């Protein structure tokens, strides 16, 4: 379906924004603080409604529409915007997320109709309170701008002044030169938004040129960062503030770009970056060919020197290029950390504890793929911390602790890996209980305890004795961490808390692979090199002096035996009718006999760090999640050159 990917991505972003705004709404104390949140929410729902309409997801359109209606009433004060309303809308947002992701399957959700009824039957609006009318006489806003302000704008300005805020007026004049440098009205608005709330933006058209006036409310009377084409005026004078140093050079555009939170970003699918990375890989191979051709050409040392120098330079540049592409895949961890406040809020409610969430290092850049895979294990650990680690407020007070527990999520970069910590100040692990539930010895330390917690099925035993300790599905967490090429660890201090940590590589290369078994060992083979998988019967094979041929679609394919190529002969005998992979490179095809094709899965490629172990036909190694390793075979190398050890 066209646009499906764009739709899910934008919808996810909108929903995440909706969730954040809803949380902000429940925390906003004053009506003036709530207004911008309402606007942002209404806009997000509206955009989502439009998109859902284009994709013909009618239930989502309905939910958005009715949520908008409620929010509009709440914005006008006709409806209480309390925690209950926020909860209702959060529930709707969860349903919307499911609808968005179920799109390819078009799942019918019965909950949707229940939710729609709740949205519709929500408290009837109370009569509209009289809106304070205002001439705005105390404000020195020019008539040219002022006549475009609505009564609600005047209302917000007055309220802001009562709250001790400053009214500011800024003008921005766009020009083609500035536009070419990326300085446009959006940037001007972002710069201004960093200093306060935007009440209204008014375009002033003069002949064929245009100027924008921004009416602002500032918390502090400091002017915004300077930007070419932007003038700033303060309207309601506050007590004197230190004058700006007139000698100071206005910040250049380049400086501004460095210090400003806005970035000129382009969205790129990870798949496209993978394509670029593959091309870089091809270039590396081409460079080696060049090097080899040079060695074999018989050119003498002196004549060959400039070519050799160029080849060396290309090698360095290729390495830089590869690093640059790797960096392009990096996104801030906040993409996954940002989802935690909502999860914690829900979990705290259901597990009867109070918790303060502290997050550190969410700006750390990690691979996009890692961020996606990190969400589930992280949620698991957070859930465990709230379900098993943190005590109820009463229990905490009896233990002499603050009633509100503390949950800390931290990301600490360590060289080319990152350590992600989930720490609570709860009761810590009960080693005895863990030993008892496992029906064995009491673990000597946290490391041994983790071993027990990560045994498959351990959680089910714990369900019976819910307060015995941690361990809901820890085996799943450890498996996910291992599959990312990482390591899971644990520290615990009885009565003081518990810390789970995951050490993960910063970058990941992921390849869709066939897992095969061969003489009792498992190997992985990149899927895109394989065009077909088949079972080979003995009577399909013809023996020739030059080798073996396989009957295949009326023709014959050269047949190679992987056991022979790799020189392995393990304890397991080759099955009577083994599997074969058809490998194609250009017009050239061969059938490779393996014992069994076990399955298809994505594997994380770990480069072979030890030069003694690396071979041209080894593409790396991967961890299979059960603790065992599999070598990744480069079929192209194997077929072309055989095994040179």
């Amino acid at each position, binding site marked *: 379906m066209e646009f499906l990917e764009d739709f899910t991505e934008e919808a996810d972003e909108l929903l995440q924004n909706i969730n954040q705004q809803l949380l902000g709404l429940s925390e906003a104390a004053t009506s003036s603080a709530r207004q911008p949140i309402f606007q942002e929410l209404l806009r997000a729902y509206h955009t989502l409604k439009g998109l859902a309409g284009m994709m013909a997801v009618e239930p989502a359109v309905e939910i958005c529409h009715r949520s908008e209606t409620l929010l509009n009433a709440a914005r006008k004060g006709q409806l209480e915007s309390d925690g209950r309303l926020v909860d209702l809308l959060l529930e709707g947002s969860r349903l919307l997320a499911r609808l968005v992701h179920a799109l390819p399957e078009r799942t019918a959700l019965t909950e949707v109709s229940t939710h729609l009824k709740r949205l519709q039957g929500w408290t009837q609006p109370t009569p509209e309170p009289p809106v304070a009318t205002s001439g705005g006489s105390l404000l020195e806003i020019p008539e040219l701008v002022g006549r475009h302000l609505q009564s609600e704008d005047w209302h917000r300005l007055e309220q802001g002044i009562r709250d001790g805020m400053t009214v500011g007026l800024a003008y921005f004049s766009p020009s083609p030169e500035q536009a070419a440098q990326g300085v446009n009205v959006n940037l001007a608005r972002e710069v201004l938004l960093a200093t306060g709330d935007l009440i209204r933006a008014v*375009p002033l058209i003069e002949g064929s040129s245009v100027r924008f006036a921004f009416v602002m409310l500032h918390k502090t009377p400091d002017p915004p960062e300077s930007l070419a084409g932007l003038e700033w005026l303060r309207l309601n004078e506050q007590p004197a503030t230190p004058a700006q140093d007139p000698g100071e050079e206005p910040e250049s555009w380049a400086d501004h770009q460095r210090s400003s939170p806005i970035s000129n970003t382009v969205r790129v699918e990870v798949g496209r970056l993978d394509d670029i990375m593959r091309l870089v890989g091809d270039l590396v191979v081409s460079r080696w060919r060049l090097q080899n051709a040079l060695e074999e050409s018989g050119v003498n040392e002196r004549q060959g020197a400039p070519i050799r120098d160029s080849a060396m330079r290309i090698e360095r540049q290729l390495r830089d290029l590869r690093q640059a592409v790797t960096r392009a895949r990096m996104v801030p961890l906040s993409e996954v950390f940002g989802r935690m406040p909502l999860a914690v809020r829900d979990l705290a409610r259901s597990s009867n504890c109070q918790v303060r969430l502290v997050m550190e290092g969410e700006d750390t850049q990690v691979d996009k793929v890692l961020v996606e895979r990190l969400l589930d294990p992280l949620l698991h650990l957070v859930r465990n911390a709230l379900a098993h680690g943190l005590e109820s407020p009463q229990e905490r007070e009896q233990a002499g602790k603050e009633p509100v527990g503390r949950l800390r999520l931290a990301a600490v970069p360590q060289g080319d890996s990152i350590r992600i910590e989930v720490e609570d100040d709860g009761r810590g692990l009960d080693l005895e209980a863990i030993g008892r539930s496992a029906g064995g010895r009491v673990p000597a330390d946290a490391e041994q305890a983790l071993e027990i917690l990560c045994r498959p099925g351990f959680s089910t035993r714990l369900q019976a004795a819910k307060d015995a300790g941690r361990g809901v599905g820890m085996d799943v967490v450890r498996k996910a961490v291992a599959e990312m090429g990482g390591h899971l660890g644990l520290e615990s201090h009885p009565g003081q808390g518990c810390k789970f940590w995951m050490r993960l590589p910063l970058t990941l290369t992921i390849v869709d692979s066939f897992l095969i078994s061969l003489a009792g060992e498992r190997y992985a083979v990149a899927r895109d090199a394989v065009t077909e998988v088949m079972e080979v019967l003995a009577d399909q094979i013809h023996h020739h002096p030059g080798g073996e041929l396989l009957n295949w679609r009326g023709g014959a394919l050269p047949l190679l035996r992987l056991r022979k190529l790799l020189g392995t002969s393990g304890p397991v005998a080759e099955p009577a009718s083994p599997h074969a992979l058809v490998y194609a490179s250009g017009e050239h095809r061969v059938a490779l006999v393996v014992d069994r094709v076990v399955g298809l899965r994505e594997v994380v490629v770990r480069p072979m760090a030890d030069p003694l172990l690396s071979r041209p036909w080894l593409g790396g190694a991967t961890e299979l999640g059960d603790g065992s390793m599999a070598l990744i075979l480069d079929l192209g190398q194997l077929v072309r050159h055989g095994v040179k050890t």
Partner: protein
Amino acid sequence: MTAVLVVDDSPTMRKMVKAALSPLQSHFGEAANGLEAIEQLALQHYDLMILDLNMPDMHGLEVIQYTRAYDSYRELPILVLTTRSEEDTRRTVLEAGANRYCTKPFQAQELLGAARELLGHPPV
């Protein structure tokens, strides 16, 4: 070559509109809000504006009012493209000076036909 300005706060929606109008072989400009739209109009010549209504900071209706209030943009054809729930605003929008009113979800052919008419191309 004609130039078309697509104004919508959703990047996906802008992409959908551009895809629907691709047979026009126009140059496409984009704006994510009303302010940016007016800036674009001041910086570059456009033959047609496809305009969403509900956008941050400046409503599409205001964009129409502004463009119609000034000589330089009075003749610019405006096609308003908005969600069904705003059907009741059709009259307001047309009275303010929009040339056409289409609703989301739109059919590519329908949008293309409307755009062709506004650009003065005979409908195919």
